[in-house]
C-alpha cells in the first residue's frame, strides 16, 4: 500500500521538529514526521546541560527543555508523527519505505522530503588505536545516554580522548556523578569544543586538557585497565619518550561526528566529501528535486539553535516547492573552498531571476587571527569581510548578493589582513 503525503520529514530531533512545526504553520496539512526512537526529541533528551536556546528562544535552556518547546507545538498543531519507525529506504522518486511493529511495512510517496537524520559518533574503529578490545570503551554520547537517561554509572575512572563538546560536557558530568576524569587528550594542538566548555567543564573542575596528545595503546582483557598516552609531533606521530600509562576503567571517545547519510546516498543524493552531508543550494535543496537536508545530517553544527534555524529554512523551501511558488533558475554557481576554508554550506548557488542575499556558512581549516574573508569571481574580489578570529570549532558566515556574482564559480578564501 502506498500512502501519499505532501511532506515527509525523516528524523525527529531538533532539525526534524523545527522543520515540522514550520511547515505545518505555513499551511501544509499533511506533514509526516518519522523517527526510529520511541520518543520525540532525538539526542536533545540526553543533553541535560544548559546553554541551548539563546538565539531561538532568547533564554538559556537545557536540551530536554529545548526539545519540549517544539514537542508541545507538534502536539498543539496536531502534526502527524510515527515513532519506533525505521526508514528502510528512500528513492529518487521520493518514495519512503518504513517499517514498525504496529503497521508492518508502509510506503509513503512524498512531494517533498526533508532529511533530518542527524549524525552518529565516530567509533574506535575509525581511529586505529592499537591494543586489546576490552569492555569500557564508549563513545561520549553512549556514556551520556547511560548516565542521563538510563541512570547508570558506566565506570569509576575515565580518560577522555577528543575534546569535542560532548567529551567536555561528559568530563564535567562524570565528575559531578562522583567519577574521576584523569584527563582529556586532544591530538590537535587546539581544543575541538567551544571555549566556554573548556572553562566551565574542565577548568572549573581542574581536569587537565592535554593538547597534541593521543592514546597509543589500550590495556586490559575483559575490562579496560588503562591506556598509554603520548605526545604527537606536527605530523601526528607519537613522540618517543613521552609515553605515559594512565590507569582507568573507561575510555570515552569524543572524536567527531559523521552525518548519517546512508538513506540519502541510496536515493542518489550527492554528498560533500568534507562535510559528509549532502551538497545543497541556498534553499538547502540537494541535487534531487524536492529533497532537502538540514541540521547535523547536512553538516555538524556548533549550536542546536543554528540547527533549528537551518531546519526552518529547509521547511520554507519545501513549502514553496509544494505550493508551486519556486522561481526559475537562471544559472548555477559552484562555490570553491580557497585558502584557509574547510567547507561551505551551501556548496552551490542557484541564481534566479530576482536579486537574492545569500548567507554562506563556512568553517576555517585552522585558528587564524585578523583576517579577511574574500569572495572571488573571475579573479576579482566581489566581497570582503574582516574577522578578528576564526577557528575550526566555530561556524562563521558571510552574506553575498546574487547580483554581485559573475561567471559560474566563486572562490571563498581567508587571507591575512
Amino acid at each position, binding site marked *: 500500500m502506498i500512502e501519499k503525503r505532501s511532506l515527509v520529514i525523516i528524523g525527529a530531533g531538533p532539525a526534524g521538529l523545527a522543520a515540522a512545526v514550520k511547515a505545518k504553520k505555513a499551511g501544509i496539512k499533511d506533514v509526516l514526521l518519522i523517527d526510529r526512537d520511541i520518543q520525540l526529541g532525538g539526542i536533545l*533528551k540526553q543533553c*541535560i*546541560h*544548559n*546553554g541551548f536556546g*539563546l538565539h531561538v528562544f532568547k533564554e*538559556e535552556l*537545557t*536540551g*530536554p*527543555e529545548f526539545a*519540549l518547546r517544539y514537542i508541545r507545538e507538534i502536539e498543539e498543531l496536531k502534526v502527524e508523527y510515527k515513532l519506533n519507525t525505521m526508514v528502510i529506504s528512500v528513492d529518487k522518486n521520493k518514495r519512503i519505505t518504513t517499517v514498525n511493529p504496529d503497521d508492518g511495512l508502509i510506503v509513503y510517496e512524498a512531494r517533498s522530503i526533508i532529511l533530518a537524520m542527524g549524525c552518529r559518533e565516530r567509533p574506535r574503529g575509525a581511529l586505529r588505536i592499537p591494543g586489546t578490545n576490552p569492555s569500557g570503551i564508549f563513545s561520549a554520547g553512549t556514556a551520556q545516554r547511560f*548516565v*542521563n*537517561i*538510563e*541512570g547508570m554509572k558506566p565506570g569509576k575512572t575515565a580518560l577522555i580522548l577528543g575534546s569535542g563538546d560532548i567529551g567536555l560536557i561528559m568530563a564535567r558530568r562524570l565528575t*559531578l*556523578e*562522583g567519577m574521576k576524569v584523569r584527563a582529556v587528550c586532544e591530538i590537535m594542538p587546539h581544543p575541538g569544543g*567551544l*571555549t*566556554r566548555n*573548556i*572553562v*566551565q567543564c574542565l577548568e*572549573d573542575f581542574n581536569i587537565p586538557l592535554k593538547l597534541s596528545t593521543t592514546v597509543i595503546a589500550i590495556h586490559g582483557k575483559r575490562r579496560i585497565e588503562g591506556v598509554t598516552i603520548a605526545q604527537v609531533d606536527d605530523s601526528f606521530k607519537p613522540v618517543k619518550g613521552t609515553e605515559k600509562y594512565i590507569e582507568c576503567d573507561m575510555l570515552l571517545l569524543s572524536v567527531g561526528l559523521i552525518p548519517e547519510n546512508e538513506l540519502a546516498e541510496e536515493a542518489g543524493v550527492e554528498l560533500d566529501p568534507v562535510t559528509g552531508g549532502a551538497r545543497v543550494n541556498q534553499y538547502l535543496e540537494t541535487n534531487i528535486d524536492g529533497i532537502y537536508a538540514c541540521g547535523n545530517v547536512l553538516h555538524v553544527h*556548533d*549550536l542546536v539553535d543554528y540547527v533549528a534555524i537551518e531546519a526552518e529554512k529547509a521547511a520554507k523551501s519545501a513549502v514553496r516547492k509544494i505550493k508551486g511558488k519556486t522561481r526559475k533558475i537562471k544559472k548555477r554557481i559552484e562555490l570553491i573552498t580557497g585558502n584557509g576554508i574547510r567547507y561551505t554550506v551551501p556548496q552551490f548557488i542557484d541564481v534566479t531571476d530576482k536579486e537574492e542575499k545569500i548567507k554562506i556558512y563556512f568553517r576555517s581549516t585552522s585558528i587564524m587571527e585578523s583576517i579577511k574573508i574574500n569572495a572571488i569571481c573571475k579573479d576579482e574580489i566581489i566581497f570582503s569581510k574582516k574577522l578578528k578570529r576564526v577557528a575550526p570549532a566555530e561556524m562563521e558566515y558571510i552574506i553575498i548578493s546574487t547580483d554581485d556574482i559573475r561567471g559560474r564559480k566563486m572562490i571563498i578564501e581567508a587571507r591575512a589582513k
Partner: protein
Amino acid sequence: MKKEMVCISCPKGCRMTVEYEGDKVLEVLGNSCSKGWDYAVDEITKPVRIVTSTVKVRGGKLTVVPVKTNKPVRRHLIFDVMNEIYKAEVKAPVKEGQVIIKNAADSGADIIATLDLKKI
C-alpha cells in the same frame, strides 16, 4: 590587576581582558554585550554556575529525570548541591518546572525538573 577570561554567558565565548582592583571591576575589554560585564564582575567577586543533573524517579517510564538549579549557584557550592541531588527521589509523574528540592544546600536555588516524565 588584569585578568584574561572567556565569557561563558553564551556560546559565542568572547575573549575579555578584565582590569580590577580587589573585587572592584574597573574595565572590561573584548565583550560584545552587557552580559560580558556582568560575567566579569561575577567571576571576580563570586563566580556562579547553573548546575544540571538527574534525580532518581520511582514508578516512572525512566529511572531518572533531568533537573537544574532554577538560578545560578555559587561555584564553591556545586558539590554541596550535588550531594542533595544524589539523595533526592521523586515519584512519577513529574512535570517540567516542578520543584524537587527547595533551596538546595542553602544556595538560594531550587532544583527543578527539566522534562515531563510519565508513570509506567
